[in-house]
Structures are given as C-alpha cells and as structure tokens.
C-alpha cells in the first residue's frame, strides 16, 4: 500500500467515511436484516415433517449463516472505515494546522509538504545581515526543518492508518467472505478477530516556533528508537506488527529513515520522527528549537527500514554467485568418458 502524500491528505475527504458511508451502510444492514427475517419466516414451512423437514432446515440454516457472514463482514467493514476515516480526519486537521502556522509566519509550503524559507524572509534577513540577520536566517531554516518534520510525521501516521484500513478490509474479506465459497456452507465458522484499526499515537500539537535559534543538534535519537507501538512485530501494538491489523511490512514502505534528532537551546531534547522515504541509514542531525518538544512523538518510526539494506545486499550477492557457477559448470558434463585435460575449456588450468 502506498504512502499518503501531502496533497493526497490535504485534498482528501475522509470525513465522508463517517458522515456518508456510515448511514449508507447501516441502512443496508437494516435491509439485510429484514431480508434475513423474511427468509427465515418464509422457509419455516411448518407442514414439513421428518427427513424432509431436517433437510430443509439444514439448507435454511446454511443460507441464513451465509447471510449472517455477509452482514458481519459489512458491519465490521463499516466500523473499520469509520474509525480509520476519523483518524485520517484528525491527521488532516493536524496537517492543515501545521501548514497554516508555517504560512502565517511567511514560510513557503511546497506541494510535497516541504517547508522552506521564503524569498521574503531571506530578503528580510539579508537587509539585517550585520545586525543579527544571519542568525535570524538560521532560525528560520531551523523552523522550516521542524515544520517539515512535523508534516512528515503526520503523513507517516496517515499512511499507517490508511494501510491499516486496507489490511483490515482484506482480512475481513478473507475471514468472513471467502468461507462462503467453500463446498460445505453449513460448516461455516464464526471468526472472532476484530479488525477495527487501533488508534495510533498522535502528535496533536502543531509545531510552534519560539525561542532563539539553536545550533545543530548534538543528541540524536537512536535510529529505530524504542517506540514499540510503531515497530513491534507483536501483539496488540498500536500501529504495526503481525497482529490482527498487521502485516509485518505495514510500516516498511517509506519508513526507512532514522531519527531526526535535535536538542534546542533552553529546551528539552526534541526527537522528531522523520522516518520518511529516502533517508535510510543513520540518523540525521536535526536542529532543535525552543519548543521543539511538541514534535517529539513518533520517535523511532524508521526502524523497519534499517534491516532492509543487508537483505538486499545478500540477495544481490547470491545472484552473482549463481551466475558464476553456471558459467564455469557448462563444461562439467557427465558424458561417460574418462576425464581428459583437453576437456577443460580455455583458461582453465587442467
């Protein structure tokens, strides 16, 4: 499942999942229930007795069971979509708040979610270069980086929720609906695993710049961090893992980065989970600004990507070795003749 882009989230209308889809699906479920009741009443056939009645009852139960599976799947699907849509709506609100805050201070916000110092800000700093303008520009750049990091964190959250919706729906289809196509519908099982997305940790407070410009951070968070809620392969963690909602690779895509850490002057250490695509590898030292603690949530989101590089390298190495064996093995054919040095191809010392 792909990641959610800045514009994708900004232009989304995930609230429709709640305001439109929910009543639509609930209405459908009500009518399904009516059909089920009607079918049950119609097929009661009290005049039947004995084996005929038993056979009829089995068929009736099978059909009712199948419809119940559909109703259950649709009900859970609706809950999944509503919960996921609400979470995406929160993420969108947060993204818009961050963007609005950045624009209010004169920053440029690019369509890919990157915040940068605007020409007007640069001109302002240049005009005061000898009177603190240089420091001011550094401060602006630091703020821009913080804004960008916060946007990326929000987008990472949205991507996770979005992936969870997809995973949950696939799980529902597999658990409830695929059984309907088996040969013995009367033996339908009753799955019990819930598939509603969990609530991810959320950094709900938009970054608010403040304080004096700080230097480069000296206390980067360890790559991968310890945020098990985002990285664990486990059981009941909020966003990831191989649990009910999971898919062990749910967070792998686009989250290969390491931590963007920073410690600001006069502020607590503020780890910002950059964790976005293209930053695989070691940590990137960020810049801490006064109130940077507001964007500390989500540290260690890039954990999944760290292990990918060795895997890729190993695969490549294996392929190379295989080709080599093939190239030199062609002349080693068991033709039944005794070995003769002349059998060796050119370049092979016999």
């Amino acid at each position, binding site marked *: 499942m792909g990641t959610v882009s800045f514009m*994708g989230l900004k232009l989304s*209308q995930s609230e429709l999942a709640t305001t439109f889809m929910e009543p639509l699906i609930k209405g*459908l479920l009500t009518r399904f229930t009516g059909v089920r009741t009607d079918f049950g009443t119609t*097929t009661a056939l009290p005049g039947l007795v004995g084996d005929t009645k038993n056979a009829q009852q089995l*068929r009736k139960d099978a059909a009712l069971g199948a419809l119940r599976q559909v109703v259950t799947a649709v009900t859970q699907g609706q809950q999944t979509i509503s919960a996921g849509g609400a979470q995406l709506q929160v993420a969108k609100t947060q993204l818009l708040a961050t963007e609005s805050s950045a624009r209010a201070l004169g920053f440029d916000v690019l369509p890919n979610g990157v915040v940068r110092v605007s020409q007007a800000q640069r001109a302002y700093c240049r005009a005061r270069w000898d009177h603190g303008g240089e420091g001011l520009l550094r401060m602006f750049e630091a703020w821009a980086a913080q804004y960008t990091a916060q946007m990326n964190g929000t987008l990472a959250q949205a991507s996770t929720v979005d992936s969870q919706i997809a995973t949950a*729906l696939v799980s529902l289809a597999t658990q409830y*609906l695929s059984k309907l196509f088996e040969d013995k519908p009367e033996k339908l099982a009753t799955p019990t695993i819930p598939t509603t997305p969990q609530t991810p940790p959320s950094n709900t407070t938009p970054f608010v710049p403040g304080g004096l410009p700080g230097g480069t951070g000296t206390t980067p968070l360890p790559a991968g961090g310890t945020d098990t809620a985002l990285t664990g392969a486990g059981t009941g963690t909020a966003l990831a893992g191989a649990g009910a909602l999971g898919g062990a690779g749910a967070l792998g895509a686009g989250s290969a980065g390491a931590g963007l850490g920073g410690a600001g002057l006069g502020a607590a250490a503020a780890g910002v989970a950059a964790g976005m695509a293209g930053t695989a590898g070691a940590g990137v030292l960020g810049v801490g600004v006064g109130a940077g603690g507001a964007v500390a949530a989500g540290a260690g989101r890039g954990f999944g990507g760290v292990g990918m590089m060795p895997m890729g390298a190993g695969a490549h190495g294996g392929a190379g070795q295989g080709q080599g064996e093939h190239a030199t093995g062609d002349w080693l054919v068991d033709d039944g003749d005794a070995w003769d040095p002349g059998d060796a191809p050119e370049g092979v010392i016999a």
Partner: protein
Amino acid sequence: MSIPDRPDRFGADLPEMEGAAKRVDDLGTHLSTELYPAILPGVESVVRVNRGLPGFSSMADFFDAAVRAAVDQVAGDFAAQAGSIKHGAATFQATDDGLRAQAARISDGVRPTAGPEVA
C-alpha cells in the same frame, strides 16, 4: 426435497410451498440486483474523492468485489433453496395426482354394478 413423511398433509402444504418458493426466489433476486448494488455508487463516490488515500481504494475492492461476490453467493443459496422447494412442490403435486388417479381407479373398480339387490 423429498416427499413428506406424512402424505396425508401434502395437500395442505402445496400452496404454502409454492408461495414460499416464489418468495425466496424474489428475496434472492432483490438482494443481489437491487438492495446491495444500491450502495455501490455511494462507495465509488467516496473512493473517488479520496484518491489521495490509497487505502480507500481497497474499500471499493471490498464492497464492489468481495462483498458483492458474497451477496451473489447468498442470492444463489436463496435461489437453490427456492428451486428445492419448487421441486418438492412438484413432487408433491405429482404424488397428489398419482394418488388421486389411484383413488379414482379404486373407486371405479369397486363401483357397485347392477345386481339382484339393486334391482
């Protein structure tokens, strides 16, 4: 559907079974051709305006493919049930006709003929 164990009751059950078969058939058709498809345009529209959320496209797959196939399957079950009931009704009808014919033959066979006591 087999002949009921108590053939003496089929006469009363026949109209009920025929009605039930038609009703069940109608329910299945309604389910798959009207009731469920009615929500699909709404689902599609929500997915369309949320193109930027890749997970939402799976919602279309879920409703338009998985649930739809399941609903069609249920409708198929209903149709099979209706067919089964129809078959049972036809069997009842055939049995009924046979028994009536047999009864008529027996009735004809024992019909009193002219005899001394009649005369």
